[in-house]
């Protein structure tokens, strides 16, 4: 069984995780037709949260690294390659300054989005509660009307 196929590791001398896994898989198939039910993708607000969470690392990783390749010129090769480095570093300095300011904006936007999701979800839940209360009231009034009509 490869590492990717291993569902768990067991700290138990004398017991093999592969044997235990085989028993687990067999029982799963006996209980559930089709065996393992894969995790369903998130929907609604949960999906938005996951998308926002996935941005956390890229949000802070905007810095540019200097990467200079040596070129082969017919003349002045060595001088040209040495001159390129400070030009690249100067460019990277300005770009990274911009990237740093952009990072501050991006992180701020993410915080605002997070707050927005929070408020939208609260509002949606309040609406759902109001709708349920109205439905109950409608049902109650309908019953009352039906009783009055029957007299």
């Amino acid at each position, binding site marked *: 069984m490869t590492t990717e196929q291993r569902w768990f590791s067991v700290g138990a001398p004398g017991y093999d995780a592969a044997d235990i896994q085989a028993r687990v898989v067999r029982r799963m198939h006996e209980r559930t037709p089709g065996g393992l039910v894969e995790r369903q993708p998130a929907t609604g607000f949960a999906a938005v949260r996951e998308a926002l969470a996935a941005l956390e690392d890229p949000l*802070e990783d905007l810095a540019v690294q200097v990467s200079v390749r040596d070129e082969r010129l017919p003349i002045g090769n060595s001088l040209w390659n040495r001159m390129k480095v400070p030009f690249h570093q100067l460019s990277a300095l300005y770009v990274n300054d911009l990237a740093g300011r952009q990072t501050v904006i991006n992180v701020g936007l993410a915080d605002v989005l997070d707050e927005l999701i929070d408020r939208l979800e609260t509002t949606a839940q309040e609406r759902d509660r109001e709708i349920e209360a109205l439905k109950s009231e409608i049902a109650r009034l309908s019953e009352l009307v039906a009783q009055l009509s029957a007299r």
Partner: protein
Amino acid sequence: MPPVVHQIVPNFAFADAVGNQILATRDLLTRLGCETQIYADHWDPRLSSLVRPTADYLSRQAQEHWLILHYCICGHANHVARETSGNLVTYYHNVTPARFFFGYEPAAAACCGQARRQLKGFVGHGATIAASDYNRAELESFGFSVKAVAPYILKLEHLHAGLNTPGSEALRARFTAPDLKTWVYVGRIAPNKRVEEVVRAFHVYHNQIEPRSRLLLVGSRPAGRYSDEIAALIARLDLQDSVIFPGLFPAESLGVFYELADVYVSLSEHEGFCVPLVEAMSFGVPILAFDSTAVPGTLGGSGVLLHRKEPQVVAEVAHEVIGNHGLRTAIVGRQRERLTDFEPGAMRAQLHKALIAAGIPLPPQD
């Protein structure tokens, strides 16, 4: 003459891993004859006699001293520590990534994000130690040079001694149910702990495998959206009678729940150490824990380390561990071996060595 060594932390919490380690460090420093004080921005009222506000530290800086900053969340204390005129030692406990709080607690998300960003500003400032190998690796990825790892000194003997108190007897009477297979989770009801996945796995176990079962969710339950979602999930799955929040109880009685457990389940996706795993080991409870962050390091090859955590997988593995007596015995035996690595005397010695490696000229321990 022993050095002056103070400690500072943004939030000094009662009975959590960082709070207990601060107290253990204070005990060590006091025993070595050091003048020491704990400073904090905020603290639990039960700790009031042991702590002073961060502002008081600012007037103590003239004296030569070392300052241990317990880095675990954002706060004014971090800024004060960074600007200290003393000798800084940053003790990194890890900061929960902000993404776990997106959509649940925007303020916590902002605070955690800020703490993780500002951590990089400590590179090259003073010395750094870490509470686990995982934390050390994370710091090194940020460019820190980590002097040593100092795992938590755990007062497991207090948990066992607390089993015989009247409070524990009352809890035992209330929760003992020998006919029920009991899953236990201990910890905060917080998004990174993925408690909803424990509930879903238990749902499969309870409905498809063993109806005579229950899940005890032991720990603080802060008010908020995440707690509400957990409660709504439990109701939606019709588990109100089987998933139990024991509520408040004396801290020394925590061991009762480990006594009652047939299996300890953690599906957390972020841990800096995970103290409950070691507590479960000390009570002979087989552990099922998801392979993430510091969990494999703390388990050290013991317990069952889940590489995937679909509810069916967790439920079936729990069933195997609970029902297979030979397997259970082997797991618990290996866990007891691992437990010896956390012997308090050895952990105190490791903390002592770590602080010396960080540059604090402590006298030798007796």
